[in-house]
């Protein structure tokens, strides 16, 4: 019974994580804005599954120990992934044009990072 249950979970996960491959006309897939860099700080599948843990770990290190490396820093995610629109403005954090919100609204995940953190790159923090 237990192993059957596991099998079902496994199948479910495979389907869920295999989403991009399955994205067809019938399955809406979030339109994720491109970042400015060539590649992310970790492989995309790792980031997709564990970015929340990586960010949480880094958050505690920075806050409590003053470790300010760039990898897994929320600021660096924003610096790369949030780019100005054609009119020069930056996407609103509540819109699907914002890198973070594009996926989170798709997955119905509410995050509260941006109640405190400014959702734009450092050099555009006040725009």
């Amino acid at each position: 019974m237990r192993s059957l249950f596991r099998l079902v979970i496994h199948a479910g996960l495979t389907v869920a994580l295999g989403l991009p491959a399955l994205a067809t006309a019938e399955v809406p897939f979030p339109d994720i804005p491109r970042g400015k860099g060539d590649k992310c700080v970790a492989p995309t599948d790792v980031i997709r599954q564990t970015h929340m843990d990586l960010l949480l770990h880094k958050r505690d290190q920075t806050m409590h120990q003053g470790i300010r490396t760039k990898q897994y820093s929320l600021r660096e995610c924003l610096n790369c992934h949030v780019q100005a629109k054609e009119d020069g403005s930056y996407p609103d954090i509540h819109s699907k044009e914002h890198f973070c919100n594009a996926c989170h609204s798709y997955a119905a995940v509410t995050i509260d990072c941006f109640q405190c953190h400014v959702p734009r790159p450092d050099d555009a923090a006040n725009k």
Partner: protein
Amino acid sequence: MSSNNDSNGSRRTFLKGTAALAAGLAIAPGVRLLGVAKAKPDNEAVTSIVRWGMLIDTTKCSECEVCVEACHAENGIKDQGDPATTPQWIRKLMARDSLTGHVVTLPMMCQHCENPPCADVCPTGASFRRADGIVLVDRHICIGCRYCMMACPYKARSFEHINVTDQAPHAPRGKGTVEACTMCVHRVDKDQQPACVDACNERGHGAMVFGDLKDPESEISQELVRYGGTQIRADLGLNTGIRYRGI
């Protein structure tokens, strides 16, 4: 305001101890193992080898507000139109001796205690003291209960009452959490001084000295050894990182 010679005394004794240690570690003339350079690689944790502090000379402090303006500009704190709710990370105080008429003005902010009462009362562990002596609020875990605001003898903390937008990237701030002077921890970690200290120097007052209280060679330690410094409410035994002269 009172001074506590006991805690000053024990700190001096301690400084003397570290001075002796530093001398003992001299490996060649002019070469010391305990250098003054504090540059910490980004990937290393802060340690208690340093303790950051400030010495504020009230005789050089004039009636200006540049430190307050610089702090609030640096940390993105804006006037909310209501003084009762606008956060205040640093403020200017004026004290007048009714007998002599002598007036003292000084900046007041988080005193970065060694034994911070805010951290004692915090039910979540959000209020804490970093290894290098900087007292902070981890807003990720702050529940906004404001016990710390009541426990702080210096009224140094503010509660964020409204939704905040356009924060400074290095100073995330949001509704429902408590905040206070961070000694510009984001600058200190880059080997810079707090914004208030820089602003006071730029204005030519030079009333604030920032530095490592544990380094006997630092300007702040040298000044403290030579002229002493007073803790505000030293009777509480908090061993503050901010010391004053001329009060």
